[in-house]
């Protein structure tokens, strides 16, 4: 019997071991009958017998137009990979269907394809098992795999090619562990079909991808235009476009370009701008225009993704970036109104003027002190025209916005009257003398504690319901009963049993996996 133990997830991709020693994703050796054997019309895979999946007991036939998948205890086999890949859309459809139909308790084995230039994207799309049959055939034909593509030789060693693929799969597996597989597939564009699959996933399976995509990754290396459609970025932009509400009392918006240094406000250019605005900052809402993130209200600059990305900058924007930025700015100002909007941007960003509300002012920013003075004068004259008396606690305002971004608007009322207290090198939100949320500066997010956990239970947010036991270090998937729909991998979550608080922790797998699986760490408990 195979036992699947997942060690890492990223979106649909998963890495772990079968039988305690066969790692996946993996490529099976078709010459080894211990791994694969077809007898009496039934495939035996790693000792497990597979049978065609039938919708009904009485339905003993396959649908001859659309070959069905086969099932063993732990594996679902898609037999017609070689054919499906001809129409990547069909392949993605099938993967999605299989995942929804059979759940995550089974690994997906895709037959008939082991193209090294497709393996990374196929793993990203949820395939865990391949076999080497097509590699053997290609090798005999003199095809040799290289990192840049196929090359033709008179003879190619099968072992070289298989070795090439094994190393590749190992690297892909590592990237699932390290949270960089999205970067890998974005950059591995040797095959147009690979790119097609990624673009189709981003475009047509946005919602499904988002549900599986972790809340945060270690770092976004946005080295290709495909980065613009990363599920974590579209998720962020959706929030800023449709849910975000500006802090009250800030009635002048100043848009400015991003900086390479993160958070932006620690960069030289932003320091100069902040200094120029000076005391007026109380009434100014600073908004940073950037690709691939889009638009970042100053309060969110410390959070993911604004704090954790990098992009090649050449002083010119591509059309895709321009339309992405225009869209988010347009949506943002539809939901948030100001007395006046000032764009303090370089020449290359002047295109945003078209998306700003009527009457917005452009102040050119050419890195000179003169332009800073012009900004100062402009803001000052606006404020004198539209005086505001609201005094804000800048820090509290920022942390409230971050908490709303991380947990939802509902949390704002709990934070009323809270104070920020610095404790060693982290800041805490304190209510009635007790810390309720601890801000992790490194990660740019709050962690929940026993004081604040009940709020989540009251509101039905970020909950993982477990069996009635006292959690220690890890909650395994077998112990999870249900989750609220908002839970994503890497989220801060609250553990409970029938509403009784059991602890807090970090989600380590997609919520669907927590439900479907038995093995693997579902939640890392914070003690």
């Amino acid at each position: 019997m195979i036992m699947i133990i997942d060690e890492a997830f990223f979106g649909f991709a998963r890495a772990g071991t079968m039988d305690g020693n066969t790692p996946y994703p993996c490529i099976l050796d078709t010459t080894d009958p211990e791994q694969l054997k077809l007898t009496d019309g039934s495939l035996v895979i790693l000792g497990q017998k597979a049978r065609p999946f039938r919708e009904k007991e009485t339905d003993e036939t396959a649908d001859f137009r659309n070959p069905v998948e086969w099932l063993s205890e732990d594996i679902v086999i898609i037999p017609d990979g070689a054919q499906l890949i001809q129409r990547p859309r069909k392949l993605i459809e099938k993967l999605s269907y299989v995942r929804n139909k059979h759940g995550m308790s089974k690994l997906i084995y895709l037959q008939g394809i082991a193209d090294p230039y497709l393996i990374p994207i196929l793993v990203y799309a949820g395939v865990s098992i391949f076999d080497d049959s097509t590699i053997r055939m290609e090798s005999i034909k003199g095809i040799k795999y290289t990192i840049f593509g196929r090359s033709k030789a008179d003879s190619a060693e099968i072992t070289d090619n298989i070795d090439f693929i094994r190393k590749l799969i190992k690297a892909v597996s590592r990237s699932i562990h390290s949270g960089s597989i999205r970067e890998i597939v974005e950059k591995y564009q040797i095959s147009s079909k690979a790119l097609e699959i990624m673009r189709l996933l981003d475009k047509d399976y946005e919602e499904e991808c988002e549900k599986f995509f972790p809340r945060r990754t270690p770092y976004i290396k946005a080295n290709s235009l495909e980065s613009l459609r990363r599920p974590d970025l579209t998720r962020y932009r959706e929030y800023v476009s449709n849910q975000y509400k500006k802090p009250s009392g800030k009635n002048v918006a100043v848009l400015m370009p991003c900086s390479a240094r993160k958070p932006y406000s620690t960069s030289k250019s932003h320091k100069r701008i902040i200094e120029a605005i000076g005391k007026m900052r109380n009434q100014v809402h600073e908004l940073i225009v950037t690709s691939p993130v889009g638009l970042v209200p100053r309060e969110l600059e410390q959070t993911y993704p604004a704090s954790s990305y990098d992009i090649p900058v050449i002083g010119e924007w591509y059309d895709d970036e321009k339309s992405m930025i225009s869209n988010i700015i347009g949506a943002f100002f539809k939901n948030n109104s100001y007395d006046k909007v000032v764009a303090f941007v370089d020449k290359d960003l002047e295109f945003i003027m078209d998306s700003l509300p009527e009457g917005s002012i452009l102040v050119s920013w050419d890195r000179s002190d003169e332009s800073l003075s012009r900004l100062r004068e402009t803001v000052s004259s606006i404020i004198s025209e539209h005086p505001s008396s609201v005094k804000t606690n800048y820090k509290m305002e920022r942390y409230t916005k971050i908490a709303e971004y991380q947990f939802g608007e509902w949390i704002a009322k709990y934070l009323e009257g809270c104070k920020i207290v610095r404790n060693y090198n982290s800041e805490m939100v304190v209510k009635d003398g007790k810390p309720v949320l601890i801000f992790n500066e490194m990660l740019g997010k709050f962690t929940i504690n026993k004081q604040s956990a009940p709020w989540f239970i009251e509101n039905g947010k970020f909950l993982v319901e477990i069996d009635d036991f006292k959690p220690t270090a890890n909650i395994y998937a077998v112990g999870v009963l249900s989750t609220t729909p908002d839970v994503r991998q890497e989220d801060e979550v609250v553990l409970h049993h029938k509403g009784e608080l059991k602890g807090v922790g970090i989600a380590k797998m997609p919520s669907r996996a927590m439900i479907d699986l038995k093995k693997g760490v579902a939640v890392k408990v914070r003690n």
Partner: protein
Amino acid sequence: MMINREFASSIKRLMPNSQRKTDLDRPVSIWREKDRLRGYPETTMVAIFKTTGCSWYRFSSCSMCGYFNDVSSEIRSENLKRQIDIVSDSLEDVKTLKIFTSGSFLDPQEFPIEARDYFFRKISGKVEKLLVESRTEYITESNIAYLKDFGIPIRIAIGLESANDQIMRNSINKGSTFAKYVKAAEAVRKMGYELRTYLLFKPLFLSEEDAIADMIDSVRKSAPYSTDVSVNPMNIQKNTMVEYQWKKGLYRLPRLWSLARILLESKDFGTQVVSYPTGGNKERGIHNESPDPNLLQLIYDGSLNQDFKELEDYYKSADKKEYFASLAAEQINLSQPDFERLISRTSNASVLI
């Protein structure tokens, strides 16, 4: 249950609804080829009569059969008689004749007794050996007994296709069974005719190795009843389920090496084993990874002369690495993808350096 209803109706859906306009008085085709109906190679006439078609078409069809493309519901005995005249006139000095219809020559609905009798009268004295083909249900003592009276030695051919009922049902949709074949074969023998058994090499949904095993097993099982067993490797006919799967890349035609293996393996089972592939080395017929005219010729020659020595030597000395790699791949795959076609399409999507 002999029929897989879902499979049968999928096949039915692919069959054309309308028939082509056609000359009712001309056979589908006539040609000459070599065969050994009288125990030695000689030129033999082959004629395919245009009829109203196989009785099985009313329900469905076999997954590989596209002969329904050549039928016309308007055919009457008069038309058949005119077709018979054409065949008879073209015999010249040929003494052996093989008759096919897009169904069963012995089905009185398809080939009325009146036309049948006319046929026999027309060819008697000219033809010294005749082969006719029929589904098993028409091979009954009462239906075939009197054919002897025309004085022409007859070999009756049955498309058994496979001795495995599951394959017949789920891969071919033949609507028949091995038991029905045996019953018909016994009637043939009892009435004093010879029997040719046609087998289908590599029906749908079988890996090539499994298909080879099926052929060897089927030759063994049909040998006791058969004067000869003809192994017909698949060819792709229009509007069939096989064509449908093949176009999607979900079917790979069998390879000549495999046919050689079947012949070499079963040549001593006590019957003459022959194979005259249709469309060999062509896109829609049996072919190796690359065309091999020599191999095809050796298969023909070996079949015709019942001497497979040269084929055996050729087979043994060849490099079959690529062939066996392809078979191994098929063997663990649950579908039978046409890897060459599909892989090269997939590979073309990536950089070649």
